[in-house]
């Protein structure tokens, strides 16, 4: 069922019911586990810190969430690993100022994730080698 709700979710501000649901889910995690919300946050930070000791991760994209299935809570972590190339691309500033309006938008920090991925594709040496073959 992605028709109405799904379409709206991406576009507009969340409704007050959606906000209530999210807030409830969060508060119930600490109610049920008897762990203060501040402690939950602390734990999430600690988990990320431990993982960072062993592997490079894309910290901006890390999601550690509590999920509820039936009446049980699960701690679900979505931790993208940092690829070597992606890491380099991050260091280099993305160059794309062809279209004025879109360039302004890409300056927003939220939008930074996607252009980086595009940059990595361009930076791959295989692409350069492919062009002579076509000719």
């Amino acid at each position, binding site marked *: 069922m992605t028709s*109405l709700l799904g379409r709206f979710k991406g576009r507009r501000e969340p409704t007050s019911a959606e906000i209530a*649901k999210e807030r409830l889910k969060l508060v119930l995690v600490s109610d049920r586990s008897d762990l203060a919300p501040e402690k939950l946050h602390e734990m999430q930070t600690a988990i990320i810190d431990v993982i960072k000791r062993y592997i490079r991760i894309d910290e901006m994209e890390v999601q550690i969430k509590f999920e509820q299935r039936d*009446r049980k809570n699960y701690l679900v972590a979505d931790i993208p690993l940092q690829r070597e190339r992606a890491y380099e691309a991050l260091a280099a500033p993305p160059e794309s100022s062809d279209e004025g309006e879109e360039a302004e938008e890409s300056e927003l920090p939220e939008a930074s994730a996607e252009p980086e991925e595009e940059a990595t594709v361009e930076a791959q040496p295989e692409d350069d080698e492919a062009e002579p073959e076509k000719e």
Partner: protein
Amino acid sequence: MGARVITITSGKGGVGKTTATANLAVALANLGKKVVCIDADIGLRNLDVVMGLENRIVYDLVDVVEGRCKLRQAMVKDKRVPDLYLLPAAQTRDKTAVSPQDMVALANQLRGDYDYILIDSPAGIEWGFRNALAPADEVIIITNPEAPAVRDADRIIGLVEAEGRKIPTSLVINRAKPDMIRRGDMLSVNDVLDILSTPLLGVIPDDEQIIVSSNRGSPLTLDNQKSPASEAIRDIARRITGAKIPIGELERKKGGLFRRLARLFHRSRA
């Protein structure tokens, strides 16, 4: 075994527990069942007023427990329906006058003669709630589609689970406002079910007639009124007796509020 003892509780106060209890009791009695309601809210009794039986009380629950009268003497018969009785709470006593063991003993005394014993639990999670829960064969949790009520309902569900007796628990969502749900300004039925993961027994739409009926001391389900809330409560009563009435399907056949409610229910469920 005899009667089924059903405790109606909510955690949060003001969600409509007492009104739901009164109306369910009347609806069950109208289905030909023998019903007794026990008001477990000692010190703050109200079920008598909602049922319109406040002027006929002679003895109360504490009088029975403390041996000042026989159980039969304390039970007030509702003359408007075939087999409905109220065992009122004491108004001037402290809640500690009754213990969970007293409630179990009381329920056992009544089991043989009735089909349903409905216990109206006080709000909160303390003594009165413990009393109401002790003899329960089943628990009905009443909640509203509002964050504080849902949170408290979750707490209550947890406490019932922690009891360790595996008491079957079901949920009634009271005061649903279909228009607000459609606008996204009220948790939908499925939002609440998503969070509480408890079987749904029914949805009662918000209905001004409920207040009118409380004013009169005449539960909506007494006469076969066409009000949305009373129809929803009668459906819940039928479900309690084992009738298979799909919650969405039935509501779709009806007009107005019900149809909209059902549509929202299905929309988010699919």
